């Protein structure tokens, strides 16, 4: 069954007809060609596909796009400034070598931004717990934790 939907993706209104069982991850990658969101598993375990729905981190492989009628979705492409610079979280990942192969990175960055929005003053232990939903096979997480801690300072300064 085709379901008409309208939602906002990275600030733009998107209207489409989708099959009822279309996952947000497929919709982003195949329909909108936003391939920065990656799919790393089929059990909703790895978090590589994490995006924001209404500002909260969500696994896009575990949501039907039909469920998101009227919602605001933000992907890694949407948090990237248009002037070629980087979001403070992206910049911190780069400065701290918080990524290697890059495959988990978008999901990790999206989760980390949500974490800091709701817990701006986190300890390393809280950062590790807060990234429980994201697998990385390359970094051993050490530099990811370092990056999030660095971004916490940078994002703290940004806030009024």
């Amino acid at each position, binding site marked *: 069954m085709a379901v008409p939907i309208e939602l906002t993706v990275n600030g733009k209104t998107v209207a489409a007809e989708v099959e009822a069982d279309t996952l947000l991850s497929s919709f982003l990658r195949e329909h909108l060609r936003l391939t920065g969101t990656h799919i790393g598993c089929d059990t909703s*375990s790895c978090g590589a596909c994490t995006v924001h729905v209404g500002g909260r981190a969500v696994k896009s492989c575990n949501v039907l796009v039909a469920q998101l009628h009227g919602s605001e979705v933000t992907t890694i492409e949407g948090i990237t400034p248009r002037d070629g610079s980087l979001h403070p979280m992206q910049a911190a990942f780069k400065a701290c070598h918080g990524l290697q192969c890059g495959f988990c990175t978008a999901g990790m960055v999206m989760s980390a931004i949500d974490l800091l929005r*709701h817990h701006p003053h986190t300890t390393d232990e809280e950062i590790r717990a807060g990234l429980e939903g994201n697998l990385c096979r390359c970094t051993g997480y050490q530099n990811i934790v370092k990056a999030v801690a660095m971004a916490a300072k940078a994002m703290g300064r940004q806030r009024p």
Partner: protein
Amino acid sequence: MSAMAYHRPSSLAEAAKLAAGDPDARILAGGQSILPSMKLGLLAPSAFIDLAALGELRGIRADRKSVTVGAMTTHAAVAASPEVMAAIPSLAKLAAGIGDPQVRNRGTIGGSLANSDPAADYPAAVLALNATIRTNRRALPADGFFKGLFETALAPGEIITAVEFPVPNTASYVKFPQPASRFALVGVFVAQTSTGVRVAVTGAGPCAFRVKVLEDALARRYAPQACEGISLPSGDLNTDIHASAEYRAHLIPVLAQRALA
């Protein structure tokens, strides 16, 4: 072209009607359990009836005697709720440990209870706190709600609307996670309630259950030491690649003790 239909009713009555009209349809709350099952081909409903538009199913109300959580309230909302933290901090803590942050942002209490996953956290709280499960038809007591593996007392098409937790004197939950899924290998919820001490276990059997021998021991003395020396039969408990029934039986009093510590 998928045969599946999707409905987004705007009232509870409409949702119930849709559910009644299609026995192969599934109610969709947060989808954090049902969608993985669908993706793995374990489940192919004729339709999803999405409760997302039913704002009345969302939200938390608390007074001195009880905390009522709307069925569509997310785990993240329960975990962050000042009302829950004040009235039943163990419930907020339990919600903060369900799944992972992304799951907590979508998953709901109603969905979790209706699913009755053998290793889910909420069933332990519902049983130990002697909660009442309100549906579009009736109020169901916690005892007897969890019937078996993915099986509850809900009738076909019956929709959970809210869960009412009586405020206990004191309560605590300890989860020992399965290393891969992080679901409860064993989780033990211990509560001292107006109707006595209640100890509920998740992860160890086909569904959450109470442990009388621990309740009796704790009724005599509500202290960690009361759990010492208690050994539970393992006969009906789960055995899988992560834990034997004996190990699970061993963990129950150990975790109960830690819940009280």
